């Protein structure tokens, strides 16, 4: 490293431009939200009335309590379900484990509300399984609506994240540590509790945080399967929709409280995880062994059962998409009618999705390459601040970002509401982190001396970047871009706030068709989304040469 002040160069300009982008599309909207919440919508005076209203009414506090109940239960249950799953898959040889891993990954990549609606089709009042059980056994299935349903759907949807995190951590645990414990007569559960769990605790916390944030921000699931079980995102959406055209102050106030709460949880997790993190690299990783007898059967049963449950929604939805429909109900026989209806009725949504996601992904790719470079190779106060900015979307729920953008850009000087631009801006901000992280990870492996070598040979800074650095990081960039892409096309909570008739996306179309009871079209569209997701994932595996995804 050369000491002294770095002189201005092209990178300073790039950093400045990226910063400006974040200020306009992230910092400013959040600031506007804050302003809105503290000033009366009609008089324009400073007031705490919105906050007073929120904290004084049991109706609102009830939604907060519901959200906390759902979020905490989903997080804990996901850890309890997926932690052992990852452990089993690490220590035991499971037949078809490669396929199982891919299926679990696919199940986690779909939009959660599709799971909600599929489980309604399966376990709802007139669900297939409900009817079957009551006809054959005469037993009434427990009610799926409300808390139970949300817990089921979100746990199945989000526990794969814990599974992937913990599997990754277990891969870094050196088997010598296990053997060292065994040689000192610390075996079985005691070994797990005293050695394994503490070692992977930071990972469990990180995965737990991700699940917590997703469950907390999820809007589609409680909306569909909650039936009056109101959570905070539902509350925000309802308040916002019912106030459109007039006063957004109350929705803004709730958003501010939510963001503060999420930030507090995030910081707490960081604090705990940092105090307990260990750098590990496994010289001899734990090798899966073939289990014997009952243990082998139990391990296989657990893994397969989980995979089947996780894949059930998508498989069943795909099945119903080929069923004949008459009006809104499914009838016997198979046809492609649902697909025909989907293309004719909501063809524009399919076009919109590809168009907007396409433009978004181009912007994301360019921005991620530059941001990754600035934050990894040009460390400093500015780079650190930029790093923090890119982390913010992890904390700000999608619906809140949507509202923030809308209240900021619905009046001059920048009118964007109702256009594709505002949706693309939201998508870029929210899904950029995946590509940045994947690009930065590759860039960390590239030694500084490689660039220095190019520069010492008389190559310019920019030429070095494009001829040397970019080609070396491109695999990571593309891999990240694919994950961003998948998460854009399955995005609902921001689009539902920002869309208008012309900018409807596929997920919005699925959601509205489900609400209208048009299950055939919804199923066809969902299946299309799943197919695109699977193809994208296969491309990801091919490009990255890996069979896992970092979130």
């Amino acid at each position: 490293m050369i000491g002294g002040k770095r002189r201005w160069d092209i990178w300073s300009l790039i950093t400045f431009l990226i910063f400006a982008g974040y200020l306009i599309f992230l910092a400013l909207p959040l600031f506007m939200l804050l302003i809105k919440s503290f000033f009366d919508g009609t008089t324009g005076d400073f007031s705490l009335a919105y906050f007073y209203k929120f904290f004084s009414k049991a109706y609102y506090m009830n939604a907060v309590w519901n959200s906390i109940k759902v979020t905490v239960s989903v997080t804990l249950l996901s850890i309890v379900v997926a932690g052992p799953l990852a452990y089993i898959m690490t220590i035991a040889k499971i037949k078809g484990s490669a396929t199982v891993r891919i299926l679990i990954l696919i199940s986690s990549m779909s939009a959660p509300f599709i799971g909600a609606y599929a489980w309604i089709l399966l376990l709802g009042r007139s669900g297939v399984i409900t009817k079957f059980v009551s006809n054959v056994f005469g037993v009434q299935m427990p009610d799926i609506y409300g808390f139970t349903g949300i817990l089921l759907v979100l746990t199945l949807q989000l526990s794969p994240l814990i599974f992937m995190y913990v599997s990754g951590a277990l891969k870094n645990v050196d088997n010598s540590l296990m053997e060292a414990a065994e040689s000192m007569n610390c075996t079985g559960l005691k070994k797990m509790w005293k050695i394994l769990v503490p070692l992977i605790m930071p990972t469990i916390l990180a995965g737990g945080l991700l699940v917590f944030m997703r469950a907390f921000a999820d809007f589609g699931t409680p909306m569909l399967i909650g039936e009056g079980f109101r959570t905070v995102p539902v509350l925000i959406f309802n308040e916002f929709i019912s106030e459109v055209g007039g006063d957004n102050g109350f929705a803004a106030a709730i958003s501010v409280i939510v963001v503060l709460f999420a930030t507090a949880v995030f910081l707490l997790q960081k604090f705990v995880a940092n105090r307990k993190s260990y750098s590990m690299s496994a010289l001899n990783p734990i090798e899966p062994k073939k289990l014997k007898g009952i243990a082998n059967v139990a391990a296989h049963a657990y893994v397969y059962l989980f995979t089947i449950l996780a894949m059930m929604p998508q498989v069943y939805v795909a099945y119903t998409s080929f069923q004949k429909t008459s009006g809104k109900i499914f009838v016997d026989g198979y046809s492609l009618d649902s697909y025909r209806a989907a293309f004719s009725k909501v063809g524009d949504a399919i076009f919109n999705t590809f168009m907007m996601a396409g433009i978004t992904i181009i912007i994301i790719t360019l921005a991620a390459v530059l941001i990754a470079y600035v934050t990894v190779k040009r460390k400093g106060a500015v780079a650190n601040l930029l790093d923090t900015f890119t982390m913010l979307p992890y904390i700000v729920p999608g619906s809140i970002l949507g509202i923030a953008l809308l209240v900021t850009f619905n009046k001059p000087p920048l009118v964007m509401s109702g256009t594709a631009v505002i949706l693309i801006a939201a998508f870029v901000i929210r899904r950029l982190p995946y590509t940045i992280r994947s690009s930065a990870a590759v860039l960390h492996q590239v030694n500084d001396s490689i660039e220095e070598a190019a520069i010492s040979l008389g190559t310019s800074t920019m030429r070095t970047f494009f001829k040397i650095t970019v080609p070396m990081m491109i695999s990571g960039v593309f891999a990240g871009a694919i994950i961003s892409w998948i998460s854009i096309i399955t995005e609902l909570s921001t689009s539902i706030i920002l869309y208008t008739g012309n900018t409807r996306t596929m997920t919005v179309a699925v959601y509205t068709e489900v609400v209208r009871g048009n299950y055939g079209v919804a199923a066809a569209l969902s299946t299309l989304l799943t197919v695109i997701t699977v193809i994208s994932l296969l491309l990801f595996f091919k490009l990255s040469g890996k069979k896992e995804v970092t979130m």
Partner: protein
Amino acid sequence: MSVAISFKDIVKKYGDTTVIPELSLDIKKGEFFTLLGPSGCGKTTLLRMVAGFNSIEGGALTFNEKVMNNVPPGKRNIGMVFQNYAIFPHMNVSENVAFGLQNRQVSKAEQQRRVSEMLDTVQISVYKDRMPKNLSGGQQQRVALARAIVINPDVLLMDEPLSNLDAKLRVDMRNAIKSIQREVGITTVYVTHDQEEAMAVSDRIAVMKSGVIQQIGTPRDIYQRPANLFVATFIGRTNVIEAELAAGANGEAEICLTKDYSLPIPKLQPLMGSKQPMKVKLSIRPEEFVLSEDGKGIAGKVMNYVFLGLNTHVIIKLENGEEVEMIQQSASNGVVEIGQNVRLAVVRETINVYDASGERNLNRGSGL
């Protein structure tokens, strides 16, 4: 306390491949015993059988005559030092060292006493509250050693413990390991591929290749009288030269290196009846070559030399085109120049003579 370990016809198989075919070996009580060999020779496999981490497919492994084949690792009362130390990263130094004692119903006070005593022995008491990530490689190594010994194990097992350290630290640590082992007096099985390290620490060494023990002996035995050419070339440096063995004028065995240079070697095993000359291979270590002063010896030409202070390594091309290495005391008077023609004499008392296959050492009094 310390035990004698014995392997009787031990077999190790992975699926259908046999990695160790019927191996027998006795390790004495309190001995520092090293398994030495190139990678893949089965030395780590053997060590992990003693630890109980590898299953045994045939034969018997005994500690003091007690069969251990199916005793789980935790019940064998072993202390093990792993190649990458396997220090628990979430525990500080004292907690790491105390870990084994906590699984053994030792009172808290007793635990503390033994831990602090052990930390003194390995000289890391000042770091007792540090987390592993704040320790250097050498310090981590000492923690690993302390953790293994503090439980008073019957056997201390070490799997290439020094391979992650830098060269200087490696020398310091091997001296430390040796002196601590001597102080505690515990039976130790040590695995390494570094022959110099093996010679420095061991009471006895077993040299292995492809799952078979080639030779067992003291470091001196193994260096001076290698049982076969593999051992001769693996331990230290040596020149292998083909020659003929014949009966000399007075019936004594005589090695014929060139037409005009022969050496009588009285200690050779008698020729088996036949008077026919027989092809042999000689292992001549670089220090067993000297510049001839009386004009007798193998003719050659100095190709290169490397001055290393204490001694000088000289590369000499022989008449038949082969290159050999000679080590010369730098202080000796025969200074060489590149291109100089020389005659090399051989120190006949110490060289080793093998049959043509290189499997059998013909020197009397050698062998397994």
